[in-house]
């Protein structure tokens, strides 16, 4: 099992995971590598039944694994030697592999020991799943026009807003837009602290009321943005 694998094998396997040279090799070699890998990391012989005739790939892989078992029997050492031999022929050297290992920490072997389940598992990440009821959320509204003061305030685009203010020098930051808000109202409502900072430094009025008669700090409080409330009240 994987605990007994040599560092060289791990490195070689690591190397082959990312090796570009692998794309040029024949399927026969790839299958041999696969068979050896499974033989060494999972079990000497395949632990599933042979895939059906229609599952070409699955069946070929299964056969390769089975073949490794027939060739090497109980000898992990001989199988590993053969694996390393192929790896070297594809450009692997131990030092190079070590380097790659440092660069590619996120890639690992095909299977991992899982503490939680007490099982050897294939690497995979998947979301929640099941069959029964379905989880749903509200569908989104139409996308807003972002290249307006309000748009920047909503999206939290500090750079965009700065640039807009620089290039539109006559802009009145305290003017209500067609929906009845200043950019400060919207930034406070959406919780975009950096935008609030910027607008205040540009001289935006904290006391102006929106179409619903609410001030920026009231909107921030209602929406639950405490940092902004504190900033505005300081």
């Amino acid at each position: 099992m994987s605990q007994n694998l040599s560092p060289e094998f791990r490195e070689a396997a690591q190397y082959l995971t990312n090796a570009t040279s692998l794309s040029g090799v024949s399927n026969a070699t790839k299958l041999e590598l696969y068979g050896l890998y499974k033989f060494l990391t999972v079990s000497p012989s395949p632990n599933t039944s042979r895939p059906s005739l229609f599952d070409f790939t699955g069946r070929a892989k299964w056969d390769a694994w089975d073949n490794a078992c027939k060739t090497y029997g109980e000898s992990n050492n001989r199988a590993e030697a053969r694996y390393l031999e192929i790896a070297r022929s594809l450009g692997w050297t131990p030092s190079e592999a070590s380097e790659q290992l440092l660069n590619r920490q996120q890639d690992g072997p095909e299977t991992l020991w899982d503490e939680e389940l007490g099982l050897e598992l294939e690497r995979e990440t998947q979301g929640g799943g099941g069959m029964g009821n379905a989880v749903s959320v509200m569908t989104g509204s139409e996308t807003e026009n972002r290249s307006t003061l309000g748009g920047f305030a909503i999206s939290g685009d500090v750079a965009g807003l700065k640039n807009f203010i620089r290039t539109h020098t006559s802009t009145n930051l305290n003017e209500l837009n067609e929906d009845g808000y200043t950019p400060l109202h919207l930034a406070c409502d959406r919780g975009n602290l950096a935008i609030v900072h910027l607008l205040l430094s540009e001289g935006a009025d904290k006391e102006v009321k929106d179409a619903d008669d609410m001030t920026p700090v009231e909107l921030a409080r209602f929406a639950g943005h405490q940092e902004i409330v504190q900033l505005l009240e300081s």
Partner: protein
Amino acid sequence: MSAIQKSKEKETAEPVEQQPEDDVQDSSGSDDSGSEAELPLTATLPEASTAPTASKKKKKKRSKAAKALTALRGHKDGIPQELVNVVLEKVREQGGQAAAEANEQTIRLALEQMKIKDVIQGKAGIGGKGKKDMGDHKFWGAQPVPQPGEGPPLGDGYIEASKPSEEVRQDPYPLPKDFEWSVLDLNDAAQLRELYELLCANYVEDDNASFRFQYSAEFLSWALKPPGYHQEWHVGVRVASNKKLVAFISAIPITIRVRDHLFHASEVNFLCVHKKLRSKRLAPVLIKEITRQCHLKGIFQALYTAGLLLPTPVSTTQYYHRCINIPKLVAVKFFPIPASMTVARLARLYKVPERPHLLDSGLREMEERDVSQVGELFARYMRRFGMVPVFSLDEVRHHFLSGMGEGPRDKDSWKSPREGQVVFTYVVENPQTHKITDFFSFYSLPSTIMNSDKHSLLNAAYLYYYATDAAFEEGADEKDLLKKRLEELLGDAVIIASASGFDVLNGLTLMDNVLFMKDLKFGTGDGVLNYYLYNWRTAPLAGMSPIDDVPAGRGVGVVML
């Protein structure tokens, strides 16, 4: 007509028709998901069933179809113009209200909501991202379910005859090594807890992995132990070495009427496989095993639902949401706030009255003495829908009364939920005649919030069953009598849900929900729920869209938990 249009027209039905043949041919298994990705085209389109099915010998067409699809993938939502055209044409042919509302945009929206986009783009298997295990069409192709493209049934009935008991397989299906079967005893608090924890960490999530169902232990106990339940239908899978519960499937007995046929069936629910074991192909084995367990009890039909698209829905319903706690729903990104709104303005629009309106005209919590009247009203009301459960009085008592939690039941009960309360049932008793004229219910099903620092639980309520005698009056529909009564009744459900601290009340396009959801400010959800019948054929039932002269919703009268 332009050349492009012509070439589109020529290819139109092909990707739809020929998928089933591809499926039979292509069984290359786990390394090729391409064909799988295209199958649901037929499954999603009830309209496609009118397409010719005689083209059975079209083999080798797959690459051509794939090419056609690729060529058509122009639009930014990834839904081929082709498909939109086909659907649009079919909808217009059928006429009626749907046709009036149908345009390219609404069709695109509907298709997008039906998750067809990811399927076409190859991001998803038959049932969405990473759900190949459950949606494996090779598996479903061998099950007694209506297959894609087989066309509308000539009559209603079973697909596969019931087996005499001696022909039912006696041994459990083999599991992959390292795993073993385990029938759960949900009367044992420890095992109930194990099930709760499995589902809590691994069950259904929304598309963005932001919310995951968190069924409470009380809920599971209520949902899985109705009258006449079988413990053998609570099927678990454990790791052999350490006995950890890693997968589950369940069924409960129901009596169901589908159009004119009444039969015993099982309601299959809570199929869940541990996140780390999705490649072990446990789901098909679980489904086969629960089927075997049902067969052993002489049950050969089943009802189940899923957000996933499988062969072949008998109806597709859509979620709607009555948002209540606006600041929280916006903060956890359940409710995307429109650019023209602030949270404060939105909250004012969705403000819920404090006191139920019908309290002064007989609204109160359901009690034991109401069971027979509620049962009678319910049975009569449900006759109006195509597919419904038929409840005994014991079942009425169980579904509407038994999950009402621990604590006093008095006139102020509506103001807050009781300890462990999972179902909320209210009746309206006529003060003069003391007759029960209406009832409604909803259940509590929270979701874990996965992407927020501030909030960890979404308190969601779901509309359950209801009935009103307004449906039996002359002109119930024509004079909007039913619609008005349901708005009063379910309007109070919103108020009680709000008073009880729920963040949102959810409903599907089934029963009469379409009549009142819009006016009660339910907004469109991104989730759909597909209804499936196992080993039973019937024509599609009206869910999110009307079918023939049946208005939207009224085909389906089964609410799943």
